[in-house]
């Protein structure tokens, strides 16, 4: 197996299929998790009919979605309209290629992994904007404008936090970042209070930015269903909608991976025992659980509230954190 994987074309093929499968399965089963979780919060049962405990529900949904006609409405900008679901979903899959799930399981470890993920994350905004713009639906246009403002506003604090972390770890390499946190939880970046006493706050900031970047509630301005119907994706049907949907969940997965790697020690066990893939998934899905939990607990904030939060609170805080880290790193 290992020898086979060292042959480059085979390695590429295996990881390509693996990554796409991972994205598809995650999207499918995270919808189930979302529906089940929402049903727990809302005192209902959730899907129960298709398969035991509703486990086959995502497959039924997928077949239904794939079987639907892809409608391109009259008067839309056809090229952009068709292109934008692809523009949204491809960068996310690219992102997953550089994420180290364990010491050995990484599709392509590159030494600028963090930079690459951050840049590709911003790419999907363009897809959503084009989709909304091309739809020629007034709600979609409003949504597209909102998404751009929102993502620009929240990328800045996210990047600032990432930069301050790079100062601590001295590397953009994600695998390297995790290796630096080997050992118990006291070695995680989250608890490196000696380097920056504000590290837990920085983690929280990063998490908030992640919610906004992935357009999740309470920052779901893109798909504010009670205001904008379905926002930028109102006019999409069938797999066009499906791709947006998949990429939304894939984005959450990538974001949660990033939090896991940057702050929670990746595949390391909190007590230094049996590090491996399972710990990575425990942490990652734990974060995803919290993301879904938040969606079903809080109302949506206003758009200007969202921008105020970023420009008036998050950006100054993350700048302060950056400065503090600078000083602390210099002192140590």
């Amino acid at each position: 197996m290992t020898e086979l994987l060292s042959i480059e074309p085979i390695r590429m093929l295996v990881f390509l299929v693996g990554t796409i499968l991972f994205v598809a399965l995650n999207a499918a089963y995270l919808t189930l998790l979302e529906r089940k979780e929402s049903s727990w919060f809302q005192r209902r049962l959730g899907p129960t009919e298709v398969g035991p405990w509703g486990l086959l529900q995502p497959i039924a949904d997928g077949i239904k979605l794939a079987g639907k006609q892809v409608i391109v409405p009259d008067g839309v900008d056809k090229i952009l309209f068709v292109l934008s679901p692809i523009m949204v979903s491809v960068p996310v899959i690219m992102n997953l290629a550089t994420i180290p799930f364990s010491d050995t399981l990484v599709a392509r470890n590159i030494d600028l992994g963090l930079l690459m993920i951050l840049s590709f994350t911003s790419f999907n905004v363009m897809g959503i904007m084009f989709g909304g713009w091309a739809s020629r639906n007034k709600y979609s246009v409003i949504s597209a404008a909102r998404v751009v403002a929102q993502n620009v506003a929240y990328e800045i604090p996210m990047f600032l936090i990432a930069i301050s972390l790079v100062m601590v770890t001295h590397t953009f390499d994600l695998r390297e970042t995790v290796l630096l946190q080997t050992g118990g939880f006291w070695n995680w970046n989250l608890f490196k209070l000696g380097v920056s006493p504000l590290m837990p706050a920085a983690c929280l900031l990063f998490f908030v930015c992640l919610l906004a970047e992935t357009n999740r509630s309470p920052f779901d301005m893109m798909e504010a269903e009670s205001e904008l119907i379905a926002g930028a994706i109102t006019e999409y049907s069938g797999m066009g909608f499906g791709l947006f949907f998949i990429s939304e969940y894939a984005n959450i997965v990538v974001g949660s991976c990033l939090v896991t790697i940057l702050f929670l020690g990746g595949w390391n066990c909190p007590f230094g025992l049996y590090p491996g893939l399972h710990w990575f998934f425990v942490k990652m899905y734990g974060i995803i659980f919290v993301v879904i939990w938040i969606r079903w607990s809080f109302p949506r904030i206003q758009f200007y509230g969202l921008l105020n939060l970023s420009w008036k609170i998050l950006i100054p805080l993350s700048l302060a954190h950056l400065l503090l880290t600078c000083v602390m790193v210099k002192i140590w």
Partner: protein
Amino acid sequence: MSVDATTIQGETFVVNMGPQHPATHGVLRIKLTMDGEYIMNAEPVIGYSHRMQEKMAENRTYSQYFANIGRIDYVGAMIYNFGYACAVERLAGIPVPERAEYIRVITSELNRIASHLLWFGPFIIDLGGLTPLLYAFDDREGILNLLESVSGARLTFSYFRFGGVCNDIDDDFVAGCRAFISRMRERLTLYRRLVTDNIIFRKRVEGIGVIPPEICRKYGATGPVLRGSGVAYDVRKDEPYSIYPLLDFDIPVFGECDSMARYRVRMEEMNQSLRMIEQALDKLPSGPFMAEKVPRILKPPKGDCYFNVEGARGSFGIRIVSDGTEIPYRLKLRTPCFANLSLFEEASRGMLLADSLALLGSLDLCIPDVDR
């Protein structure tokens, strides 16, 4: 009336919100003239569920029309039945036994709580919080089960008759009511902790959608909308009917005029309704629940009368003109939602789209009640 486009800076566009839109809660269409996300003008276009309720009344006997009246505001059907029954009784001079009056008040107040619960959940949904709806439905289920046990229906009850009610309430119902009251009090505390005190929720509603009392007066707004603007007008206190003068209850009034004030009014009203039901259950007299010798086909004497009740959404008035035959000559409905919606155009001017939905939601519109 639309704002002159030349007076507005920048480019405007028109968005049709509705008739199929998640936030209008029914077939209401609002023509929004918008500048970016700011609303320059919002013109409600109504009539999508117009059923000629007033004309229908002129074609059927008084008791045949009873089924219609609950379908005007189906969320608070019991209170509308109350208004119609009282109006016809006043017109025809039918006495109502005391026990029936108590039963009417108990069931009406239960229905008022159910109606407010059905407002509470969707209002939070308008603001993006999806979970409280299910909790509200859970409570409403308790009320509907109680009302079903006496009336046989769960939405359009038609439980009242001219001169009383069609079924007596039994000990099970009384015990069920008391159990519900104690349960509901806990739930109201829960809602306060989970929803009212939520920081995001407060930011969404506090200071948003201010309706000054002058606008309320101008458009004839009543009910929680008016009381949320600091005017203590409640038909149950100001033009008391039935046994309401015998009950001890407060009229919640909040002077902030914003969506939060209207929210608080309704939450407090549920509390007051619980108090009323409790008192009415304590005082419930024995005796007949139906007046004797009410003719099967009513022929009220020539004349007209107006009767006003406090519906879940505001004051609901019925004017009936009788020409001495078995069908009304004219029946005019004064529905609260129509007046409450009218002020939306003026109150929403210059608001953001998302905020205007907080305003629209806090008006608690029932679209068939607007269109009737």
